[in-house]
């Protein structure tokens, strides 16, 4: 666990929070990122550094821009008409917001898990190897191996190994979400983006996914958006609290939940609003 000592607030925007050395380095560096949907601004000068092979949770009340921020990382916001952005999001030396960025290649470096499980209407196997297929992999042996590994990593192998060629839609909701996680990691991404992955699941399925996240962080940088503060406290190393499009406070999870600097953070994590 990284010891984080500095907390930042909007008043001191511009100096990005950097977790102290000792971790694995920085995976993504967001610098003064602004985003507008048409005329209304959704994100204001967000600066944030995401640590490699750590779980970073984005929390905040509905509409605070945490999903928008997450979707900015693999440029899913490009799909929405009228979105305008300024600022910089760097993965290593590359600014992914640059016009010349090959968005398809960028998305291949990221896996994404959505709020509602969204398996494709095809077999379990075809679902898992979809990222490889669209990348042009035709080698059957490689596909089968990858499928097995991904399903094992997503803790779905035991349940699915005998029905790989059945429709993915025959799985239960929790299984479907683990399938989506398997699919997200099958393409061997660097970063895993999770947009409220448990909000549509029952507590049992939720706890399985949480265990899974805990295991996955050894290999992947994980950014997770969640509404559930207990979940953020349980699974994440670092937590960013956002409110009304601004990053209010960012720091290690223990600090945010036990000793926040900002009054708003305190109010939110103690459940007094939001």
């Amino acid at each position, binding site marked *: 666990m990284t010891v984080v000592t500095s907390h930042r607030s909007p008043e001191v925007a511009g100096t990005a929070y950097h977790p102290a050395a000792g971790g694995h380095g920085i995976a993504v560096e967001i610098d003064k990122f602004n985003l507008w949907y048409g005329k209304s601004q959704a994100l204001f000068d967000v600066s944030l550094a995401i640590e490699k092979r750590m779980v970073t949770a984005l929390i905040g009340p509905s509409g605070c821009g945490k999903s928008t921020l997450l979707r900015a990382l*693999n440029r*899913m916001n490009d*799909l929405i*008409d009228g979105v305008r952005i300024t600022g910089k999001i760097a993965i290593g030396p590359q600014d992914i917001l640059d016009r010349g960025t090959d968005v*398809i*290649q960028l*998305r*291949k470096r*990221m*896996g*994404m898990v*959505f709020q*509602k*499980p*969204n398996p*494709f*209407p*095809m077999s379990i196997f075809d679902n898992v190897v*979809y*990222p490889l*297929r*669209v*990348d042009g992999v035709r080698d059957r042996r490689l596909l089968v191996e990858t499928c097995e590994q991904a399903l094992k990593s997503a803790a779905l192998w035991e349940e699915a190994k005998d029905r790989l060629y059945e*429709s993915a*839609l*025959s799985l*239960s*909701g929790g299984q*479907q979400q683990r399938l*989506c996680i398997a*699919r*997200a990691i099958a*393409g061997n991404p660097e970063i895993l*983006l999770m947009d409220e992955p448990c909000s*549509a699941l029952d507590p049992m399925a939720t706890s399985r996914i949480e265990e899974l996240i805990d295991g996955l962080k050894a290999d992947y940088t994980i950014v997770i958006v969640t509404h559930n503060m207990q979940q953020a406290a349980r699974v994440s190393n670092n937590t960013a609290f956002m409110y009304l499009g601004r990053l209010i406070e960012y720091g290690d999870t223990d600090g945010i939940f036990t000793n926040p600097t900002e*009054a*708003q953070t*305190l*109010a*939110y994590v*103690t459940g*007094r*609003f939001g």
Partner: protein
Amino acid sequence: MMDGRATLRVPAPSRAPAARPRHASTDLAALGEPYLWTLGGCLALGIAMVAGLLLLVFWNGALTFWPQPIAVLELAGGERLAGVETRGGTYRPRPDVVAALPPTAQAVVAQNRGLVERTLYRTGNFDLYGDDFRWVSSFQIAGIQYPTDMLFVERLEWGVFIGRLRSFQVGAGEPVQAAVSDAAFQAAHAVARARAQSIRAIERHEIGRINNTLERERLGARRVAFDHGEGSGEHQAALARLASLTSRLEQDYAGLAREVERLKAMDAQDRARFADVGGREKEMPLSQIVRLYAANDLNAVQQVAIYLARWWEFVSDEPREANTEGGVWPAIFGTLAMTLLMVVVVAPFGVVTALYLREYAKQGRLVSIVRISVNNLAGVPSIVYGVFGLGFFAYFLGGSIDQLFFPERLPSPTFGTGGLLWSSLTLALLTVPVVIVATEEAIAAVPRSMREGSLACGASKWQTIRHIVLPRAMPGIMTGIILAMARGASEVAPLMLVGVVKLAPELPIDGTFPYLHPERSFMHLGFHIYDVGFQSRNSEAGKPMVFVTTLLLITLITAMTATAIVVRARLSRKFAGSQF
């Protein structure tokens, strides 16, 4: 709120509004009950009308081929009349007709307030009577019998003959008295029918092939003249080849013609002599008789056999007697081929257009205008499409094709006139809005989460459309295609301009090179109904055929639609399954 220390604001207690009396029960208008009844009534009315129409068509169509008994009427004047009862009704005879009746009959008429019942009998024997239907008033009938030896004779020409068999002769033999059930007569009839068919086969196929070859060679020689110039060496050589081929083929032709002559001479000798109910005799070649049976002497098995044989003839044979008799096979084939060709054209065209409009085109004013125009296209009267198809496809496109590829056949057009291909394209144009609208809706209904899931996996837009959007939208697209198919198969008006004809025994697919002839004009069941019902010399004889053909057309469209629905159900099942 912002600082987390905000206090909950409790609204100050206000004065309660004046108490209103409570209803004992919710009133009907609030429950929407009257609207529900109206909706249900409209639905019931609609269903009743559709069901009534289908029942009428089905009843009339299904009964047409059932063998009916032949009644022999003893008329008041001593005249005898034989016929099949067709339908009845009442009418008001002229006063002088009533006055001339015997007093008892007059009393009956007066009791019915001047109305008289009458029945329409199909008497057949058009060659003898100059008519084949006759109204008989009830007061004219002195007695009705159903003699077992009355025959119902279906002929190749002149329609039905109703009468008795007198005798028949084979070859140069003497006439032999016979009944219709005699084995000798039936064998002679079968031989004569087989011989007539072989004559037809020689004329249609073998002589037809010689004519085709000659025509092709003649056109080939003309082509050489176009390519190398009139009188050039190549042309001379081609003409010489043509001349030698012509002389050889003419020998073949002469041989076949002699064979046909010989068979026809034999055919003319096998004859049967019939007499109508009044004793007037009529002699006809046995080969002219398609089918004959003693209508009043049939058991149930024979009746069913005749019924099924007539249906088979109807769906497998070519029409005769100005389409009022025989079969409709060319029309069935034409309808199917035209509809399938139309689907093959309209499905990809409509789907690609909708994909571009929905997925790639920048949504703006231009796309809106295109979309509105597409929707409006669905409302253009179909005859307008016919005019367009004739002008653009047949005359412009087809004319250009003729100029480029078939100059040797001009001035007689090949593609430059109505035909199967142009009809299919015209109908494809007519139905493409249906497919576009349905496809656009189906594509729009694919959940956003699916697309995002695919894009997040690093799939390109095209891969997402190809692997996720199109398969998911396929059932909806199929619905559009089904609607287009039903619309196209039942359309007649534009086809009359771009390729449907009254009689086209040559199918668009046959054994002569190049086997597919999309330029040929064709027959269509819808047009056949119009033609038989309203354009034939004998509308009374055509009426049952109208019902049968309508029944067949409805069945055909239902079958095609059902096939498409099965395909769609199979597709939907693939994507069904609960989310949770």
